[in-house]
């Protein structure tokens, strides 16, 4: 009961007009900076944190919450409209979202992203308030072997969703895995595939890769169509808003995305991208419209966007209950909390309830503000697509490189954008899917490190990988996901599946 009282108290103070106004400014600033590709939520919060220092504690906490959620959300708008993911967690959104935008359904795509983010943010923030202590116990059970099993499951489900074991899908995945090897090996500090180039020691930045593969590769591809391609994209076909059918297809995806994203966000080594991958794979498996996947299926936007925002709230679980900053964003938030005299840690809920509940209330308000800000803008954003092509693509390139330059003003990084942009262009010409490259780049190192950690801890005993119940269940699921389609195919249903795979971009 006291929990509820504290929350109510927090909500009342957060709902004062002045505080609502701060929330709106925070959300706006966060979105504005967060949309820049290459500048993810972590950098957004780091750069904008000083802006909040000038306010009183409540106000600054609220503005801070707004910046955080705004930064998380910012990436999806550009993913959908410009095929330029603002950060790694909105890469999956670009897959279906941009296809929708190109077919004149940008409005519903943006709307389902905004409402999905709101619904997921709302549920996840409430979950943070009420069940955080239980979730965190589960999160701590996850050690290297459990993470390894989770990565195996992610690999199996995701790679089948991106091409159903076709030659080209697997080739793309392995190109991504090969690229993921570049840089210092985290466990031994040895260089791999860096060829003596210092800029390669940290490996290939996921956002650089995503921007190159999606934005630049596609710009080159469209340029190569020359005059054959239509001069303008039809920005709005049918309704700008979601139809009843859109709603009925979206709401379950939102809920599933939330259920997947929140616990994965709460895991110390989970990461927001994995939730979005799994959500996409789930939606593709469960949809009644499989033919639309790869061609603009609304579930493919709704689910991953919800997962993305739910995991943003999930990240706060270990931060608030244990004081563990499990992501770059969380580490910066920790620095921010210290500014408000908050020492996150196991005792936080007991020693500083007012501020904690104030923060949770602020998150709820910020989440609401995000919806208020974004829904009315949908119509305006969609108009962006009516800009004549030379200016639109000139602008996309300007914007895509801006984020990279802002995060790391290096000529080498720009060179990587160009090289990988050309790679993506060639891959498009030969009809290789792009997304598996990014999946390989993200999941490869995670799986490898966790496997090696698990084996090092056990001093080389391989059986530890299957002796923990959680790991065993996850591996079993992965095995089922691998074998079931084979059985189905053997029973003659494979044709339909491989046809679906072929319609992949």
């Amino acid at each position, binding site marked *: 009961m006291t929990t509820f009282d504290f929350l109510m108290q927090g909500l009342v103070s957060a709902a004062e007009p002045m505080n609502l106004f701060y929330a*709106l*400014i925070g959300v*706006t600033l966060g979105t504005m900076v967060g949309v820049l590709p290459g500048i993810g939520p*972590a*950098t957004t*919060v*780091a*750069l904008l944190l*000083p802006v909040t220092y000038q306010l009183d504690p409540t106000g600054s906490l609220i503005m801070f919450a707004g910046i955080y959620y705004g930064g998380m959300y910012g990436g999806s708008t550009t993913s959908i409209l410009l095929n330029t993911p603002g950060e790694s967690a909105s890469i999956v959104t670009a897959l279906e979202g941009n296809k929708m935008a190109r077919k004149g359904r940008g409005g519903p795509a943006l709307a389902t992203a905004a409402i999905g983010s709101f619904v997921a943010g709302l549920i996840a923030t409430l979950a943070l308030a009420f069940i955080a202590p239980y979730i965190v116990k589960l*999160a*701590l*059970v*996850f*050690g*290297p072997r459990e993470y390894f099993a989770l990565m195996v499951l992610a690999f199996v489900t995701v790679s089948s969703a991106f091409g159903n074991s076709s030659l080209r899908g697997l080739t793309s995945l392995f190109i991504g895995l090969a690229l993921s090897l570049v840089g*210092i*090996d*985290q*466990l*031994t*500090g040895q*260089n791999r595939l860096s060829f003596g180039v*210092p*800029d390669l*020691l*940290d490996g290939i930045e996921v956002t650089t890769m995503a921007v190159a593969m999606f934005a630049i590769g596609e710009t080159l591809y469209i340029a190569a169509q020359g005059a054959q391609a239509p001069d303008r994209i039809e920005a709005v076909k049918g309704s700008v808003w979601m139809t009843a059918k859109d709603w009925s297809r979206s709401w379950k995806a939102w809920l599933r995305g939330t259920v997947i994203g929140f616990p994965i966000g709460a895991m*110390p*080594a989970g990461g927001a991208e994995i939730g979005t991958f799994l959500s996409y794979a789930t939606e593709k498996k469960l949809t009644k419209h499989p033919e639309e996947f790869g061609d603009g299926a609304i579930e493919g936007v709704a689910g991953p966007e919800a997962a993305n925002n739910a995991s943003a709230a999930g990240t706060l679980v*270990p931060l608030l209950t*244990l*004081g*563990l*900053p*499990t*992501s*770059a964003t*969380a*580490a*910066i938030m920790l*620095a921010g909390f*210290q*500014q408000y005299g908050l*020492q*996150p*840690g*196991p*005792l*936080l809920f007991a020693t500083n309830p007012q501020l904690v509940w104030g923060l949770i209330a602020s998150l709820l308000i910020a989440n609401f503000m995000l919806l208020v800000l974004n829904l009315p803008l949908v119509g305006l954003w969609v108009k962006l697509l009516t800009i004549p092509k030379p200016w639109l693509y000139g602008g996309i390139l300007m914007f895509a490189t801006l984020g990279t330059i802002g*995060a*790391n*003003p*290096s000529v080498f990084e720009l060179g990587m954008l160009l090289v990988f942009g050309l790679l993506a262009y060639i891959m498009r010409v030969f009809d290789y899917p792009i997304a598996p490259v990014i999946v390989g780049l993200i999941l490869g190192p995670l799986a490898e*490190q966790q496997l090696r*950690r698990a084996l*090092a*801890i056990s*001093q080389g005993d391989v059986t530890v990988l299957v002796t923990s119940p959680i790991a065993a269940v996850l591996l079993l699921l992965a095995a089922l996901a691998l074998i079931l389609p084979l059985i189905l195919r053997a029973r003659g249903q494979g044709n339909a599946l491989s046809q679906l795979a072929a319609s992949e971009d």
Partner: protein
Amino acid sequence: MKHFLLTTILAGAVALPAYAADYSVMAPAAPGGGWDQTARSLQTVLQQEKISKKVQVINVPGAGGTIGIAQFASQQKGNPNALMVTGYVMVGAILTNKSPVTLKDVTPIARLTGEYEAIVVPASSDIKSVADLVAKLKANPGSVSWGGGSAGGTDHITAGLIAKTAGVDPTKVNYIAFSGGGEALAAILGGQVTAGISSYGEMESQVKAGTLRLIAVSSDKRIEGVDAPTLKESGLDVVIQNWRMVAAAPGITAEQKAAISADIEKLEKSKGWQETLKTKGWSDTYLSGPAFDEQLAKDIASTETILKDIGLVK
């Protein structure tokens, strides 16, 4: 709304004082990390205390800061307005990455802050003291898994030094590198590893809550308010500090160096800096002049030795 925002931003921009750039501080890391925070704190305090009129922060991330230092040494040569934040982590990174540019190629000014390492075990562990840990380590070095930050970083070096001082082969240390303090801490809390090493600040709240047992700290003398022996007291002569320093460009004159040193000393004495240290939870380990140069040389030499002993540098 858009209009309003623009006005706010414009108003904010005009309100900012515009002076000639006095210092540009390079943070050889992405925005948000420890070096970046130090650089941005320097910026704020130098301006606030009117030591400098305008300070600009430049981020050059990559490879443990070695990309930043290479760029700093070549592009800022002889520039008395250029500063760079760096730290102990870079000493190791320069060695493991075989960086051609080292700290000898810049002009060290002063050490500003530092953090000591803490050695912890989960509260449920049967290890109660450093002696227990050493006994276990001697019996079977592989059975003690150490959780900490990146390979070759301060945490790894500390683990290597503990083993070496205790008479255990440092190459046999079963060090498990995690990608960040939070991830390592989660593994320690979850009992995935035997012991954990990280800066005391990161462990503090867990230790206070009783979920982790602090068995030693790496400082020279006991830390005020921390109920744990030093490694030295426990019979291992290991003192290690993860410090951050400020350096100036190479090729500046003695007068220019003196002027910068004076500015930094003024900064360290200022109320604004002392307040910043408090809110950020950094301890003041200010050291400058010949004493600092000597300590720096010592730190570099000992780091090189231990990294060779662990087998990370050949």
